[in-house]
């Protein structure tokens, strides 16, 4: 008798384990689809997402999200998955309406350390920091501050070039129409990686049945010029990017009177060398932080 129970327990444990692994790696398209939308039997997983080709995102399933008809409601909601056994975020799902949107400025989120978090800086990254605490559902949509179930380790590039444009489009549409937008973000991890390979974002405007907002994309968690070890979050500058930076010769020349800075090769760069208003910076970022802006020519 005891042996029989042991077998049942073993089978249950195996099934649970398989479900856990697949839930981290894959999203079943066939189970979720907007009625009338193009259906697909495809499954999103690390293995069938196209390689990063220089664009921050790629369209999935002919851009059709895979919501169910029962999701179509004019009542706002937001749901965040429990962290998994590795402490990783899962699916974040909301029906974004005006009542969920922020009424005050965003608070601090620095106390959250998402899985794979590393505080590392590179000169070739906008703002220098490679990683941001990326909201799965952006603050401008559901006003979530330091919610650990909604923050992952994401590159600056994914955050600003990949996710933000889609958040902007949805936020402005909801503000303009007072309608609702179904919005689901699924971080895609490979195996036991601590850093997601990217996020799958689906959105659909409810009241107009997707006429204004309808998309289904995968946003790559990459940073051009930097190689990331997704299992740990560690990173290094790619050789080509390092060589490019090494070949950069010459200081940045600022004009303390106009608060404009000039890079080597720009029109007034040589002229600035003898200017009484010359201020020298080692990097453009240094100049920007000092309140200077780049010369247009």
């Amino acid at each position, binding site marked *: 008798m005891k042996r029989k129970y042991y077998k049942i327990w073993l089978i249950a444990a195996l099934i649970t384990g398989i479900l856990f692994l697949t839930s981290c790696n894959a999203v079943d398209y066939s189970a979720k689809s907007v009625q009338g939308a193009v259906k697909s039997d495809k499954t999103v997983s690390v293995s069938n997402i196209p390689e990063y080709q220089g664009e921050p995102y790629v369209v999935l399933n002919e851009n059709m999200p895979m919501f169910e008809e029962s999701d179509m409601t004019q009542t706002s909601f937001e749901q965040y998955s429990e962290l998994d056994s590795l402490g990783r975020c899962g699916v974040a799902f909301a029906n974004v309406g005006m009542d969920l949107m922020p009424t005050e400025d965003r608070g601090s989120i620095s106390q959250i350390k998402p899985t794979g978090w590393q505080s590392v800086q590179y000169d070739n990254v906008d703002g220098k920091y490679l990683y941001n605490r990326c909201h799965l559902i952006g603050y401008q949509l559901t006003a979530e501050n330091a919610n650990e179930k909604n923050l992952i380790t994401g590159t600056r590039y994914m955050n600003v070039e990949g996710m933000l*444009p889609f958040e*902007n*489009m949805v936020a402005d549409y909801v*503000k*303009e129409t007072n309608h609702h937008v179904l919005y689901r973000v699924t971080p895609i991890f490979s195996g036991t990686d601590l850093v997601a390979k990217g996020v799958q974002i689906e959105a659909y405007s409810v009241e107009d049945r997707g006429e*204004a*907002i*309808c*998309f289904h994309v995968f946003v790559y968690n990459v940073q051009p010029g930097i190689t990331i070890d997704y299992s740990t979050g560690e990173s290094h500058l790619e050789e080509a990017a390092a060589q490019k930076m090494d070949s950069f010769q010459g200081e940045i020349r600022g004009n303390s009177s106009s608060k404009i800075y000039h890079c080597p090769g720009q029109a007034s760069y040589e002229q600035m060398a003898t200017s009484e208003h010359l201020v020298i910076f080692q990097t453009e970022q240094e100049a920007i932080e000092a309140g200077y802006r780049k010369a247009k020519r």
Partner: protein
Amino acid sequence: MNVIVCLDDRQGMMFYNRRQSQDRKLRERILKLCSGNVLWMNAYSYKLYAETANDFIYVDENFLSKAQKGEFCLVESVLLKPYEDKIEQLIVFWWNRHYPADFYFDLNLKDWKKESEEEFQGSSHDKITEEIYTKKGND
């Protein structure tokens, strides 16, 4: 003809056959701008303007070919390069936002002279910038 376009920070106009954004106050401004003159657009754009029921709006899929001198054309989903010689004035409304895009404005603004620039608040956009351009060499 005078062409009106709405662009994001990267000169994007559409993503997957949908406009990037919309704004009620911007529509009112466009209608006021064209008031008393013909405003051409295609059926896709007209869906946004249908409620205003203005009899000076003409809807046609080949509107850029049909528009006459001095008339206005609202362009959301059509390439402009083939019609560039016909354009007298370009009226650009900047969303001052970055949206996804796969269809972009195809004229080079460096070939045009900026005559004016004005900012205003939209109904859902904090700051929209209106810029009016004329062809360089038309002075």
